[in-house]
């Protein structure tokens, strides 16, 4: 019987020819090639500016950041005069008489802004993450598709799209103005950043809660657990890694925001560890130092930029590490 089975089809050559794709229409091959080229070009257009930006920020800012002064010293208030003092030409032209100090080397420190950034972001997280997680629990575990839940979900989506400067103006008008000279503080900035973070936390947490399989909720309910117990003991623990990584991304976003902060935080040159009283952040420093102008102020701004980027990247990496743990589970 077996010998009657042909070892190869008579049309084998034709089949080989067909499978090789040599007969593909020419136009199809051209279109395929063009699409590949277009995709590579698009990728380069996206990647190259990013790489250039990263390289230029790091190369201009890394110098000051890698000094001990940067992390420990107050922000030099007189960078302008130091600049002038350092510039002999300007000094000779008479601009330097106010800066007759011979101390050309000010300490380029940024500790107040680093502390201020941590303080405001911490405050904003303490406000936004608990409220956001609870809100998401309401949306996904209780409200589901009812009217209030759908309304809140819609408004949250709208809030995600609101420009951050609006959050700054909002807190400025209802909090800063009302409190007069005491109004600007790390707390006010934290409020503005919390407004920004809240919708992000709500939506990312809700997505994570939605990923928790319903079978776990059923298993818990079948053991005679109330919904509160199921949520606290099963759903939230199961979603915790994802919630954490979503919250960290919101934190990273808030850390980089400038507009809500410049309205609400004021300015300070020495470290202020309190939520009250004016303060400053890295993003606010980038903004104001660039406006100051001069080479020293500019290098302060670049240094702040590198520090901020490093902080945000650390948070993003932490978020990714945590979500990877979720996947491996």
């Amino acid at each position, binding site marked *: 019987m077996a010998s009657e089975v042909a070892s190869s089809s008579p049309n084998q050559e034709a089949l080989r020819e067909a499978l090789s794709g040599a007969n593909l229409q020419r136009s199809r091959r051209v279109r395929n090639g063009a699409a590949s080229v277009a995709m590579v070009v698009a990728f380069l257009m996206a990647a190259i500016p990013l790489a250039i930006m990263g390289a230029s920020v790091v190369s201009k800012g890394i110098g000051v950041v890698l000094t001990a002064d940067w992390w420990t010293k107050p922000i030099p208030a007189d960078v302008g005069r130091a600049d002038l003092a350092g510039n002999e030409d300007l000094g000779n032209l008479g601009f330097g008489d106010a800066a007759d100090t011979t101390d050309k080397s000010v300490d380029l420190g940024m500790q107040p802004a680093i502390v201020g950034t941590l303080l405001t972001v911490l405050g904003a997280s303490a406000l936004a993450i608990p409220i956001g997680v609870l809100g998401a629990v309401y949306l996904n575990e209780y409200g589901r598709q009812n009217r209030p839940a759908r309304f809140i979900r819609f408004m949250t989506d709208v809030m995600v799209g609101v420009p951050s400067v609006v959050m700054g103006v909002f807190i400025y008008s209802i909090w800063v103005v009302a409190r007069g000279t005491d109004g600007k503080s790390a707390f006010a900035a934290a409020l503005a950043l919390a407004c920004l973070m809240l919708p992000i936390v709500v939506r990312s947490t809700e997505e994570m809660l939605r990923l928790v399989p319903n079978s776990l909720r059923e298993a818990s309910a079948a053991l005679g*657990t109330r919904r509160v117990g199921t949520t606290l003991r*099963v759903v939230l623990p199961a979603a915790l890694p994802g919630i954490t990584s979503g919250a960290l991304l919101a934190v990273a976003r808030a850390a980089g925001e400038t507009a809500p902060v410049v309205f609400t935080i004021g300015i300070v040159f020495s470290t202020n560890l309190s939520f009250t009283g004016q303060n400053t952040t890295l993003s606010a420093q980038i903004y104001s130092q660039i406006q100051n102008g001069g080479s020293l102020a500019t290098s302060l701004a670049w240094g702040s930029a590198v520090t901020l980027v490093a902080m945000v990247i650390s948070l993003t990496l932490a978020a990714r590490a945590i979500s990877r743990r979720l996947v491996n*589970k």
Partner: protein
Amino acid sequence: MTIDQGIAGMTTQADPTETSSSAELTPEAQPREMVFDVADLSVFYGSYRAVRDVNFKVLRNEITSFIGPSGCGKSTVLRCFNRMNDLVDGPRVEGSLRYHGVDLYGETVNPVEVRRRIGMVFQKPNPFPKSIFENVAYGPRIGGIRKKAELDDIVERSLRRAALWDEVKDRLGNSAMGMSGGQQQRLCIARAIAVDPEVILMDEPCSALDPIATARVEDLMREIKSDYTILIVTHNMQQAARVSDATAFYSTEVNPDSDVRTGLLVEFDRTEKIFANPGDERTENYITGRFG
């Protein structure tokens, strides 16, 4: 060893009718307590009646199986027994479903309390992403037991009852997600047992398991029925014949005008009667494989 147990279990089940027929010989001498009395139960989704005409009684310490083609409402009816349907946008239930005489759908009935007494094991093993110990201790903890020694005792007892203790006693702290499917399902049974329910509902508990794991779960069911009353939905008729004392056969009926399918209870009787001498032609067609 696991296979030995499985085979041992299969040989002991060689005569599936033995226990139930002896029970039937002495129904008057030892009247069994009735746990559930289902009368004219219908389940509606909106105005659509999904299941109708469900009438039967469940006796204490018996295994009652639900068989029938897909979509005939077996699981829907099963989920009425612990008000599990309430969790989703619940179907409406008409007729009466009495548990020791109390209507489970009465106005003063709290579903949470119902579920403490009537446990459930699901089609797909669904252990919590926690340790083996925490899975079993979950129910007792919810019930307010805090003492470690007491929890240890309950966990060991439940795992032993579910014939899982010897396999996991050295790794109670490991995640339950690392167990095999059969182990996970027995863990889910142990978890259900741990709250000491009176009734255990099983919704196709073996459909995701291989034959050996299935045999072990069936052994387990026979083993624990002295303490519990079990209702099981199964697609496997042999399984119903092997383990159950009473069988409910469900089928679907298509309304020729509207093309609406409705599930209904066709026949309820002792298992050996259903399989040996069914009273309804539809039952006979189904169990002999001639179901259209």
